[in-house]
C-alpha cells in the first residue's frame, strides 16, 4: 500500500509544465487533485516514473464568464469551488446538481474539474454533464492549444483524446438555453460511492411546450459516458406524455445503453435502473422546462 518511487516536479508556470510534458511524454503523469491517481499508486496499479504536480498553477484555477452564454472553468479548479459557485448554480444548474454525487466533501475539496474529466471514468459525473451540455475542452502543448468537443473526447475506459504531450487546461460550458429543463439522477449503494447507473437529461421546449431539443446521457452504462441519440430524438417535435416518456425509457434502456455486468449489478438490473432513471429524469426536466 505504498507508492513506487517517482521523480517529482512542481512546475510554477503552465509554460514550464508543458515543456516537462513535452520532454517526458507518456512517462509523466499529471498530478491534479490526486484523488484518483494516488489511490491507484498506493495500490501500485499505477507506477508512473515522473509526476508533474499542477497544484502551484493558480493560473489554471478559475471560473469565469467573460463571454456571454458560456462559462470557462480552469482545469485545476477544485470540485468544491464549482459546487459553491452561485453563477453555475443559476446558469448551468445541471452541473451544480451533479456535484454532490461526486465522492465525499473532503475528496471534492481536493479533486479537480480537469482531473475528473481527464481520468475518463465511465462512472464519473463530469464527463456525463459535459456531454449533456455540449461542453468543450481545451488542451495545450508546447505547440499551442486546441479545442476538443465532448463528443470526440471520451474514447472508452480511462481513454481520452488528450495527446501524450498535452495537458487539459480548460473546460467551456454553455449556459442552459431559455425554456430548458434538466435533471441529474443516479443510483448508488452508499452516498459518495460511484453509481451503478446514472443519467443527465436536458430538454428545451418551445412556447407551446413542444420539445425542440433533447439530450440523454448515461453514467456507467457503457465504457464511456453514453449519449442515447435515437431515444432523445423520439422526443423532438412532441409533447412529453407519460406514454412517450415510457417508450423513450424502454428504447434507451433496452437498445442504446451497453451495460457491462459488475460485482454490484447484473446487466438486467442496470437496464432496469436506466429505465426508471430515464422516466424520472424526463419528468423532472420537463417540469422544470415549463417553469423557466
Amino acid at each position: 500500500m505504498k507508492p513506487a518511487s517517482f521523480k517529482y516536479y512542481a512546475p510554477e508556470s503552465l509554460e514550464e509544465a508543458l515543456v516537462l510534458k513535452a520532454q517526458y511524454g507518456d512517462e509523466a503523469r499529471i498530478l491534479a487533485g490526486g484523488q484518483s491517481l494516488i489511490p491507484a499508486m498506493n495500490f501500485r496499479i499505477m507506477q508512473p516514473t515522473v509526476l508533474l504536480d499542477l497544484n502551484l498553477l493558480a493560473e489554471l484555477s478559475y471560473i469565469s464568464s467573460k463571454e456571454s452564454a458560456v462559462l470557462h472553468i480552469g482545469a485545476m479548479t477544485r470540485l468544491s469551488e464549482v459546487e459553491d459557485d452561485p453563477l453555475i448554480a443559476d446558469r448551468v444548474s445541471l452541473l451544480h446538481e451533479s456535484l454532490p454525487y461526486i465522492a465525499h466533501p473532503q475528496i471534492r475539496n481536493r479533486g479537480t474539474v480537469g482531473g475528473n474529466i481527464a481520468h475518463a471514468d465511465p462512472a464519473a459525473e463530469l464527463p456525463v454533464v459535459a456531454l449533456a451540455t455540449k461542453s468543450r475542452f481545451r488542451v495545450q502543448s508546447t505547440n499551442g492549444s486546441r479545442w476538443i468537443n465532448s463528443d470526440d473526447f471520451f474514447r472508452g475506459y480511462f481513454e481520452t483524446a488528450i495527446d501524450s504531450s498535452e495537458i487539459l487546461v480548460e473546460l467551456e460550458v454553455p449556459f442552459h438555453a431559455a425554456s430548458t429543463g434538466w435533471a441529474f439522477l443516479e443510483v448508488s449503494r452508499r452516498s459518495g460511492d460511484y453509481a451503478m447507473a446514472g443519467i443527465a437529461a436536458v430538454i428545451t421546449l418551445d412556447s407551446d411546450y413542444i420539445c425542440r431539443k433533447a439530450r440523454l446521457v448515461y453514467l456507467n452504462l457503457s465504457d464511456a459516458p453514453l449519449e442515447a441519440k435515437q431515444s432523445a430524438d423520439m422526443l423532438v417535435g412532441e409533447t412529453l406524455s407519460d406514454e412517450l416518456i415510457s417508450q423513450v425509457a424502454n428504447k434507451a434502456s433496452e437498445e442504446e445503453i451497453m451495460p457491462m455486468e459488475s460485482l454490484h449489478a447484473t446487466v438486467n438490473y442496470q437496464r432496469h435502473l436506466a429505465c426508471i432513471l430515464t422516466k424520472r429524469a424526463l419528468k423532472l426536466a420537463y417540469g422544470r422546462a415549463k417553469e423557466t
Partner: protein
Amino acid sequence: MSDNHLIKVTINGTKHTSSVEARMLLSDFIRHELGLTGTHVGCEHGVCGACTVILNGISVRSCLMFAVQVHGQQITTVEGMATKATDLHPLQEAFREAHGLQCGFCTPGILMSLIPFLDDNPSPSEEEIRAAISGNLCRCTGYQNIVNAVKLYLERDS
C-alpha cells in the same frame, strides 16, 4: 531511485523542516516522521476518512497527498484542536458526553471533517451534519451519537 525534497510545513502551529522522499504520503509523514499518531490510517485509498486533516482551513485526506505537496502550508491534526495537550476542545467534550465514539478509530477524522464544516456553517441542520460526515466510516457507533454529539456542542456553543 530516491527523489528527496526539503519541505517546511507548519503543523499545529509548530514549524517543521524535513527532507522527504517524493513518494512519502502525508499521512505517513505525520505519523512516522512527526510521531503524531492521532491521524489514523484505515484504507489508504480515500474511502474511510480516518486520515482526514485540515490543510489551510479545509478538510482533506492525508493518505491522498504526498508530504512534498504541503511545503509552505499549514496543517492541523487532531492533536492541534485543543489549546493545551491535556485539554479537550468543546467538540471533543461533546463527543465524550454524548457517546460519539466507542473504539475511537474514526474520531480524529470525523473531528477534522467537522471543524471546517462548522466554521462555514455554524447552525447546520441534521441533514447537513450527516452530509458533512458522509465521507467518514464508523464501524461502532451507528452514527446516531456522533450526530447527537454535534448537536450537543452546538447547543452549548450558542
